[in-house]
């Protein structure tokens, strides 16, 4: 729409072209001013609102960030505490093991070094020498060996004496052995002779029994125990005879129709005794 058309017809007839233009210009200026004022007002309003919004967002973000920072701090602090503890633990144990290893290594090294510079054999030899010297000096004191005895001539005499003593000692041993053998044989012979002498008047089972009991014994034993052994044999023999006698009595059979007188006569005439017969038989 044209500016000239906006004016009413009466105004267009009254106003000139220039006046319309001036009015138009004035109106445009006023409009521009009004628009500018409105825009400024709007800007101010929007700026205020924006500031409020920004401050609200800032507050929100700040609180959120604070919470995030706190959470991160707590998390990191816990992790750091764990790391510190682990580190301390590792440091302690590994440092301890390292310390032990180091000490052992140094000890081993010193041992090796000492073994090289002062061998164990040398130390053993030295201690042996010292011990031997001490033993020798003690022996010298005990045996009274002084410098005189240590000279060559005396040494030979001492050695000769030692050889003679050794030989004599071996001879003495041999003689002792022979002597013991001879003593043994003599004792045996003496015992046999004594036994023979004592049993010269004894014969039969008694002699056998005595030999059996006393054969390997010493003469003193035979002297002491001979009578007792004889008595023992006699006692045993007596017991044996009584047993035989009883057995014979129990086994005896007498015929029913045998004449009693005849038997008694026979008994008187021959004086037959079955026990004596049995005894004789056993002695044979």
């Amino acid at each position: 729409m044209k500016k000239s058309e906006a004016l009413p017809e009466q105004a267009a007839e009254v106003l000139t072209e220039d006046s319309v233009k001036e009015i138009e210009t004035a109106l445009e200026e006023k409009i521009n001013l009004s628009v500018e004022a409105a825009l400024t007002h709007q800007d101010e309003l929007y700026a205020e609102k924006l500031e409020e919004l920004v401050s609200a967002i800032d507050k929100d973000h700040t609180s959120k960030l604070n919470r995030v920072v706190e959470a991160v701090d707590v998390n990191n602090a816990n992790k750091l505490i764990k790391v510190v503890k682990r580190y301390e633990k590792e440091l302690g144990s590994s440092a301890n093991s390292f310390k032990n290893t180091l000490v052992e290594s140094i000890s081993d090294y010193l041992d090796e070094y000492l073994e090289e510079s002062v061998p164990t054999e040398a130390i053993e030899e030295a201690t042996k020498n010292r011990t031997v010297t001490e033993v020798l000096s003690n022996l010298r004191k005990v045996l009274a060996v002084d410098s005189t005895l240590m000279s060559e001539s005396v040494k030979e005499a001492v050695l000769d004496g030692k050889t003679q003593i050794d030989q004599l000692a071996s001879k003495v041993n041999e003689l002792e052995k022979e002597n013991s053998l001879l003593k043994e044989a003599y004792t045996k012979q003496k015992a046999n002779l004594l036994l023979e002498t004592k049993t010269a008047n004894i014969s039969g089972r008694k002699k056998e029994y005595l030999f059996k009991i006393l054969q390997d014994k010493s003469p003193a034993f035979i002297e002491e125990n001979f009578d007792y052994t004889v008595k023992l044999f006699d006692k045993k023999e007596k017991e044996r005879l009584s047993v035989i006698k009883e057995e014979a009595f129990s086994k005896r059979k007498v015929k029913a129709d045998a004449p009693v007188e005849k038997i008694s006569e026979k008994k008187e005439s021959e004086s037959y005794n079955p026990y004596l017969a049995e005894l004789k038989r056993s002695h044979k």
Partner: protein
Amino acid sequence: MAKQKTKIIKFIEEISSKNYARAHKYLKSVIEDKITKKIDTATEKPLF
């Protein structure tokens, strides 16, 4: 043995703190102990 270990530990400590005189003292003591132990072992062996 424990005594020797302690002395070696002290020797290392003194070396670390650059106190060489003391370190020398401890090292000498350790070596003396070791030699004494060797001699004791050799002495305890019977002569015959």
